[in-house]
């Protein structure tokens, strides 16, 4: 059975984005992309909220075809196109998109089915609203943060609507040269 991982760039004060979705404080570079790729390319299932999915869909399918694509653009574009994409949305229609499934209700049942359909890690990329719904339903197994050295002050929190306390194991802890810290936690069973 697979497990569900929330993968998020996060500020020291726990925000995923500023009040208007600002994410320009998030630091990424080749070191961070390469490190992320090691985990991402081992799996083949991506989960998104609708907004993040639309953002991804508008960029990744053709990212490698832009002039002078970076190594990250080429690699992630290749991965994105073959990955199974699962979108949480109450409004989006399932229009027979290739490799794409829309979950619009029965969250617990559908996510558990998804976990049973794979042995790998299901990665929720960003998508704070979807994250809140999954937290509320207690469906997240692992947390993968790139912790940015900034206090944002206000904005969209990563954590919301958590109902029960959970103890975690820290299974990875890496300091990047930029001062961003990777923390990977697994829920204790």
């Amino acid at each position, binding site marked *: 059975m697979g497990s569900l991982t929330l993968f998020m760039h996060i500020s*020291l004060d*726990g925000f995923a984005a500023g009040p208007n979705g600002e994410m320009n404080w998030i630091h990424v570079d080749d070191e961070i992309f390469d490190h992320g790729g090691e985990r991402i390319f081992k799996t083949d299932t991506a989960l998104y909220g609708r907004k993040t999915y639309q953002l991804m869909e508008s960029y990744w399918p053709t990212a490698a075809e832009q002039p002078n694509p970076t190594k990250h653009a080429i690699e992630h574009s290749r991965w994105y196109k073959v990955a199974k994409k699962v979108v949480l949305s109450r409004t989006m229609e399932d229009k027979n998109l290739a490799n794409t499934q829309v979950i619009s209700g029965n969250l617990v049942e559908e996510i558990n089915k998804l976990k049973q359909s794979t042995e790998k890690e299901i990665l929720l990329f960003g998508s704070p609203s979807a994250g809140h719904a999954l937290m509320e339903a207690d469906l997240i197994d692992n947390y993968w943060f790139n912790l940015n050295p900034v206090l944002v002050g206000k904005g969209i929190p990563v954590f919301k609507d958590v109902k029960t306390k959970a103890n*975690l194991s820290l299974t990875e802890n890496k300091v990047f040269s930029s001062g961003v810290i990777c923390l990977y936690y697994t829920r204790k069973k």
Partner: protein
Amino acid sequence: MKAKIERAMRKVLFGINITADGYCSHTDGIADEELHKYFTELLRNADIILYGRITYELMVPYWPDVAKNQSETESVNEFARVFDSLDKVLFSTTVKHVDDKNTRIVHSNIAEEVIALKQQKGKDICIGSLSIASQLSERGLIDEYHFVVHPVIAGKGPRLFETVKLQERLMLDFIGSKTFQSGAVALQYRKRT
């Protein structure tokens, strides 16, 4: 040793335990020996610690009593002794008197008091309360932040910097980290200048 202290700039330092989801409840962290030792070392480099009323009352007289009675494990007793030896400033408009001999009650503006303390010679100035850390962060008066992130999703409690009103984002520079056996990670940052 004395010369070394005088040479070093006196820092304002905020050290706090938080859970992975950003809460600061005193009961949700993993208070083991390594954690006590970490905070003991932090306090050893300080000679004064600043509190608001609520956190002060959680700490005093609890820790001075432990220091006096030596009633806990060695690492906890040691923390209590170091804590008890520090001067404390209690910012409160309502408290008129406390029994602790090392505590001074201050009614005036927190930022002005900290600016005045920084002019004086001494060891580090530690911040003990979330509310004071928020106010001083707004004024850019904290030089170093030590976040000890515990491997726990708490789901509730006082949130780190919940009341802060920053004029703009506060960028920090990472200076170091220490990983504990428990999976807690101490992350140390300096205010970017």
